[in-house]
């Protein structure tokens, strides 16, 4: 097994829930040595989030936790005690990065802000992930995925014209904030390797979502208006969008003359191209009557599979709207071995999503499943830091671990 890309990176992970743990998961799955620090007896609150295996709300059976915490070593530590803070600093001395996602100001209250940790280890990179960042008017505001999606125009544009905006049914803000934090951490480490100096990385979920919606204010500034696609909720788009078929839905993205040419050929209506080309702006989508009388029925009479492969056969961008089951069974992903079976002491063998991308020379790998609460206390405190088993007992007794 060739060495993984981040095998030389040691991370001390204080994060909870999704954004932070996803950042450290990315680093861990590509090789980093990640020690996940959890509260004694309670652990990461994500352990209490469903779905649970067999709907059994056991803190070792949360599917979300299991997925987000692969490859990490788990220790318990009470940072609200002086002994806990001291132990943390010992660990930080040896780490390359500390990642935390508490509300801004929390690390300072614990006596573990960047200024303090920098003195403990000048080479340390500290990455802080928060809803709104370490500064700014909303710094102390609270947010959830719904509110983050609302903060960037992303939510506003999703749904139907005559109804309320509707959210994306995924934790898209949280996961991407974790990704940006991983990018920031690795960038800071690259710089650290050149200069010997660490720094503080500040990632806010709100800015990440805004960054990902990219360019509407720029487009408005350049052109005076926004293209219809940005207002999906107006129902006006330059593409067919979601179309019902016999057994489900497909999305049909047709923009150019060439694409419509191919598509009209399969529809058996090549003569329509002449009609469209007479328009000043090429916009077959505006022929709404023709679409509902001649085009939509074509889709409705066929299965998503037929439509998918027929259209792709003439290089037209059509794809089925897949359910999770269909995603898992999709031949293309199966051929690419996207899923991975992992064994875990309490939940047995399960299939998990695999690598976001395939590195041929330093592959993504799951070396160990998500840790049980405190599973690696002995390994980290005794083998690593040199404490004895008796010390551990005392620490446990005093509520430090």
């Amino acid at each position, binding site marked *: 097994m060739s060495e993984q890309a981040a095998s030389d990176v040691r991370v001390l992970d204080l994060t909870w829930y999704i954004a932070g743990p996803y950042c450290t998961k990315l680093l861990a799955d590509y090789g980093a040595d990640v020690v996940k620090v959890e509260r004694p007896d309670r652990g990461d609150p994500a352990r209490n989030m469903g779905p649970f295996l067999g709907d059994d709300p056991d803190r070792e059976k949360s599917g979300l936790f299991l997925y987000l915490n692969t490859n990490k070593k788990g220790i318990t530590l009470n940072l609200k005690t002086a002994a806990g803070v001291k132990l943390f600093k010992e660990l930080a001395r040896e780490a390359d990065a500390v990642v935390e996602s508490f509300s801004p100001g929390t690390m300072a209250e614990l006596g573990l802000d960047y200024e303090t940790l920098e003195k403990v280890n000048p080479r340390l990179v500290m990455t802080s992930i928060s809803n709104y960042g370490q500064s700014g008017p909303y710094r102390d505001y609270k947010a959830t995925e719904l509110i983050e999606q609302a903060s960037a125009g992303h939510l506003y544009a999703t749904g139907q014209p005559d109804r309320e905006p509707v959210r994306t049914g995924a934790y898209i803000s949280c996961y991407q904030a974790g990704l940006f934090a991983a990018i920031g951490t690795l960038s800071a480490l690259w710089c650290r390797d050149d200069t010997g100096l660490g720094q503080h990385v500040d990632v806010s979920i709100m800015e990440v979502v805004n960054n990902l919606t990219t360019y509407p204010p720029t487009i408005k500034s350049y052109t005076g208006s926004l293209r219809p696609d940005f207002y999906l909720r107006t129902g006006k788009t330059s593409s067919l969008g979601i179309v019902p078929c016999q057994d489900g839905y497909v999305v049909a993205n047709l923009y150019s003359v060439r694409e419509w040419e191919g598509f009209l050929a399969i529809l058996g209506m090549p003569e329509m191209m002449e009609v469209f080309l007479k328009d000043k702006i090429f916009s077959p989508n505006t022929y709404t009557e023709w679409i509902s009388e001649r085009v939509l029925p074509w889709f409705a009479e066929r299965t998503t599979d037929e439509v998918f492969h027929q259209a792709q056969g003439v290089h037209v961008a059509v794809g089925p709207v897949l359910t999770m089951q269909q995603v898992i069974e999709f031949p293309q992903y199966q051929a*690419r071995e996207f899923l991975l079976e992992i064994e875990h002491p309490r939940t047995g063998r399960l299939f998990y999503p695999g690598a976001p991308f395939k590195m041929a020379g330093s592959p993504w790998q799951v070396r160990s499943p998500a840790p049980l609460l405190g599973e690696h206390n002995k390994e980290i405190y005794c083998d690593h830091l040199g404490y004895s088993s008796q010390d551990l007992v005392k620490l446990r007794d005093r509520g430090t671990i």
Partner: protein
Amino acid sequence: MSRMALEGIRVIACSVYLAGPKGTEMLAALGAQVIKVESTKYFDGHRNISIQPGDRYWNRSARFNTVNRSKYGLTLDLTHPRGKEIFKELVKVSDVVFTNYPRRVMMNLGLDYPVLRELNPSIIMVSSAGLGHTGPWRDYVTYAWVVNSLCGMAELTGYPDGPPAVIPDGMCDAVPASYTALAILLALRHRRRTGLGQHIDLGQCETLMVGLGEQFMDYTMNRRLQTRHGNHHPSMAPHNIYRCKGDDEWVAIAVSSDEEWAALCKVTGNPQWARDEKFSEALSRWNNQAELDRLIAGWTVNRDKRQVMEALQKAGVPAGGVLKTDQNLDDPHLRGKGYWYWCDADPGMDGAHPYAGLAIGLSKTPARFEKPAPALGQDNDFVLGDMLGISGEEMAKLAQEHVIGNEPYQYRQRAI
């Protein structure tokens, strides 16, 4: 520190539209030198969209100019023998080649990974495509909405009583683009330690599937298919979008604890709600959320969404205005944090225009966009002359033969 984080890294970007360029742009903002390769016959199709009227339209695209900032603009006709040769010279002195051209393009040009590795054994190449570079359907055509549908996210989005919904323009491009930045940084780290380059195969759908962890696990663990909840949440209530004063104005509110619920009741002037058995704890709130939604909407409907947000946030309740598509430009927090990047130096354009910030703060080596997006072939002299030592005479000859240039020549829209 006076340096930028990723100084010393050189990336060649053969990329188009959004799913490619935005990733290398992140690296450019962090200090990498990114050379964008286009040709006068096949410049980046993004240059055709969202154009400010005026001369040389290809340099006036809001979209292109947003996702190609801080890059060096090079034109090279890669189908021309000398153009190809020069590209190979550039590969020899670069660290990374990134492409989101359709798989066959680099192959047919004779510039795929096996060839590049011969030229530069430690080259890192990242290939990004909708369905990746392996598998039976690897050459299928995907745009953002197709990726949105094939990754499972569209199925999970929409009203409970409605069809699946696609999400706005480009989110399913921007996310895979960001993953390319991660891929490049990991490969660079590996190479620094081992001296080895490699090829990275990025399937855009897969970069989104990894963000659907809980939905995946519910199916693999329990054979349960999660579906559309609209704006409701599997366990939190109230959790919804509520109409506010004005045209199509809304606020998002999400309550996750009894304390937050009590605070909300107080702020709305309805402490009696907190005492109502129907709403006294999380499960009963969830079961009665239709009524909850009506009550809360009755309070928000005559109020400005910003005021609702501020009043609730001051009381510790998560709430936020649903910003309209370009309202984020005026958002006090983003402005307060200096998120927006204003540039008045886009080539050939008037006035200052706002651009998205990077969203990654570094305390000692802050990210910044050093220069605007390049005009077509803007940096030919620098890359060809200064970097590769090609003479002025030869460059003039290459321009004559349209191997390099600053204007479209026999321009054909690239089919992607």
